């Protein structure tokens, strides 16, 4: 699983809303290409971009079990998940390689963003009889 996850400390690029339209278009096209390539290599399981922090709602069950909703934004939240991919690949090295490709998505001026991408295994290995 590849998590595109930022915090104020790790996202050393301006927020996407401040980019030029063609820069945003290039970024979107890059992400679409990435998904097409991963489908073509037979590795894509799932991928989603997530809505921004303004749309976050935090839900807890109340005393009666019903939802208690807190609306964002949450300035205290340090980490923010912008999107994720689940890839099914042959080796951990290959997952790292895909992550590096995603990390280099173009930003302002077409320069690679070199975003931090968190790579974690999905718990899907066969259990061993004990």
């Amino acid at each position, binding site marked *: 699983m590849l998590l595109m996850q930022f915090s104020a400390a790790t996202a050393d690029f301006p927020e996407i809303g401040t980019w030029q339209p063609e820069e945003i278009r290039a970024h979107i096209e890059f992400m679409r290409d990435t998904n097409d390539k991963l489908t*073509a290599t037979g590795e*894509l399981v799932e991928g989603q971009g997530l809505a921004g922090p303004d749309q976050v709602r935090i839900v807890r069950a109340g005393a009666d079990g019903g939802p208690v909703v807190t609306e964002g934004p949450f300035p205290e939240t340090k980490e923010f998940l912008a999107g994720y991919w689940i890839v099914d690949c042959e080796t951990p090295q290959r997952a790292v390689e895909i992550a590096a490709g995603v990390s280099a998505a173009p930003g302002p001026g077409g320069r690679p963003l070199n975003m931090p991408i968190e790579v974690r295994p*999905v718990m*899907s*290995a*066969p*259990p061993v*009889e004990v």
Partner: protein
Amino acid sequence: MLTRRSGDFAAAEDAVQEALLAAFGQWPADGVPDNPRGWLIQVAHRRLVEQIRAEQARRRREDVVARREPVDRLAAPAADEEMLADRDDPLVLLFLCCHPALSPASAIALTLRAVGGLTTAEIARAFMVPEATMAQRISRAKQRIKTSGIPFRQPDAEDRVRRLGAVLHVLYLIFNEGHTRSAGPHLRQVELSTEAIRLARALHTLLPGDSEVTGLLALMLLTEARSPARTGPGGELISLADQDRRLWDAAAISEGIALVTHALPRGPVGQYQVQAAIAALHDEAPTADETDWPQILALYGVLERITDSPVVALNRAVAAAMVHGPAAGLEALATLADDPRLAGHHRLFAARAHLLEMAGDRPAAAEAYRAAAGRTTSLPERHYLVLRAARLAAG
């Protein structure tokens, strides 16, 4: 041959696969027909006609002019002749699908599609990936076979053992996959294990004299026999020692035992037969305490010499503990800890935890269980390990 009748390579290929599927379904039960090649061509031809009719109907509905696959890649008639003649042989198809040039994931997908006869959608569901992804994986595998120029024929005598080993490995991976998937957290996904057993059975029908093929089929049956007892009501993993043995499949056990008993003395002895023999010893024990650990220990010794696998060495250490006591097992594990192939591996910690628990060192055992839980990538196994740790801590 079918290509010449219909002029459509892809459709002919599908039809041959359908016919081979029918052969795999019928031959083990009804016996191989007198003229297997003719039988296959006839069945394939019938399927091809069915396919063409279905395709024409679809086209009328959708009003789409489907374009035929170009036939020019079959321009050389001699090669075409040879290729299709060999394609009538399910064994050649298996050798091809499990070629060592393919990655395990590609080989698995191609084998299930071309030999197992599953649809791409079914395979995609079994592996929980989108159908488009699986379709690409299969077509890339086919492409890889084409570009690497692997011939459609039986491997040479000298290459045969290695290639058959690759086939058995792929079937075993499919079998193990069956214990993995199904919506992540759950343990058993009957379809893939059943499919692997079906393929191994068909292979055994084709090669009844091969002791390793027999060994693999026996191993699958003897392992699958225990699966009703492997999980508790909450989906949690139950260790072999704690399983309710009345839930084991007695018919599968006796068939597996008969197969491995038949194969072992004939040899040559290989890893699947030895693993099957170990599984048989577990399955034969009326209770966990009555397990014949001295013989299991000896068999792990044999297996270690055959495979040079650190995981086998690890199992052997556990068997040594069952025979000679936990101290002997822990000592064996300590020497294994230096093996770089096992460094940081969760099974090393899990085995150590188990033996420390046997030795009565509860705090150290709990710590080792937690260390193992943090390193496994199997969800049911992690649940099992944290539960063991929690039980010890609650003491």
